[in-house]
């Protein structure tokens, strides 16, 4: 691992809250590490858990799944299903040996640009400490 190694984070962001929150971080010119790349989805309920595994397998060191706060879902209930699904999936991936820091599920509203930047900073720090993910890919 070279000293200037930077982790790669794939983020799934619901278009109504988190994606808009990330845009707000931009309009507020809040600087955060260039480690994250967002996939825009209509709702966190659209995020298939297998998408997350695929990201890890294709080279992501961390994955963020983010949506509206419970109760604020544009589609009323999408994120409440997300909460159940990813409560199980995160624990399950950890059960398979993934480090807990590598997958984060967060509620970030359209007003929380600051928080979005903060989450990316925290994740980047955590992942820098952990180093590249090699699990669930090729090398055992």
């Amino acid at each position, binding site marked *: 691992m070279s000293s200037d190694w930077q982790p790669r984070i794939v983020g799934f962001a619901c278009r109504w809250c988190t994606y808009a929150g990330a845009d707000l971080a931009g309009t507020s010119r809040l600087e955060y590490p260039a480690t994250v790349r967002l996939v825009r989805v209509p709702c966190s309920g659209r995020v298939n*858990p*297998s998408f997350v*595994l*695929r990201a890890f*397998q294709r080279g992501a060191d961390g994955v963020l799944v983010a949506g509206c706060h*419970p*109760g604020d879902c544009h589609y009323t*209930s999408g994120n*409440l*299903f997300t*909460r*159940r*699904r*990813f*409560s*199980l*999936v*995160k*624990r*399950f*991936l*950890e*059960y*398979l*040996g*993934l*480090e*807990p820091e590598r*997958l*984060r*599920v967060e509620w970030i509203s359209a007003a929380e640009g600051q928080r979005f930047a903060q989450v990316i900073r925290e994740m980047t720090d955590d992942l820098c400490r952990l180093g590249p993910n090699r*699990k*669930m*890919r*090729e*090398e*055992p």
Partner: protein
Amino acid sequence: MSDIQARLREIARRLLTEGHVRVFIGFGPGFEANRPVPFFAADPDAADRLLLDEFCAAGLARYVLEEVREGPVGLVARGCDGLGLERLLADHRVAREQLYVVGVSCRGVVDPDRACAAAGEEVRAARVNGETVTLITPTAERSFPRSACLLDKCLRCQDPTPRIADVLLGEAIPPGERDLAHVDAVERMPSDERYRFWARQFERCLRCLACRQVCPACNCVSCSLDRPEWLERGTGLAEQFMFHFTRAYHVAGRCVACGECERACPAGIPLGLLNDKFMKDLRDLFGVAAPHRPGDVEPLGKFCPDDPEGWHEGGEGT
């Protein structure tokens, strides 16, 4: 058992004679006396070849899916078969009126290999009592602990009697609470060790798909794991993880804990440990009392407004 077997034959014969069912699924003789195989009686006379003993291992629920297309099906069902049928019914894959379920209570199935190893010689017959199993060999009749004789899937079974029988032969045994403590052992491993554990397990996977084929919850018409965008053909570790993660996730909240996947796996991968992890978390996080018994709506198809955020609960001791 022989009395029940006689009654079973009689019922099957009647159902077939009167045309209530097109075929009756049960067990028939295999190549060896202690390895009976699934048997499909299609005419009244064939009913007399049905047998039911302590060696009948295979789950029968999944066979219904194919057979029912041609007409009504009768079958003998233990607790695990019953839950499998409930799964198919809950998933609208079969209709209740197409089934005639002859229920029997099951105290566990004897694993012939295990039993032979315990007895030291060929085991011809067995009796499963409460905590012990009596093995009958050509030379002796001795008792052994359950764990030395029964199939793994039966050791944790808490559903001896099917809930949906049209007729129940013998006495019903009340269900118990499913013990998921074996999951704890894996949870307690350090993260990296746990990863190596699973990587070693998955490396051995032949991708024969037996686990999928026997599973009453894997009852889709078309499986996403057959689609190239989801799973490539290779058996590299990435594909293995994708396969096993997806299989387990797709039965999360739907697995009936029949243990067939693990029994069918030629590589001996402990698939039940994956299914039971989801079950344990469903129980602990969302209070699903018996996640393996099908309910009105599957646990991932509903929510409570105040569900916990499982990712903050710390799924492990980190």
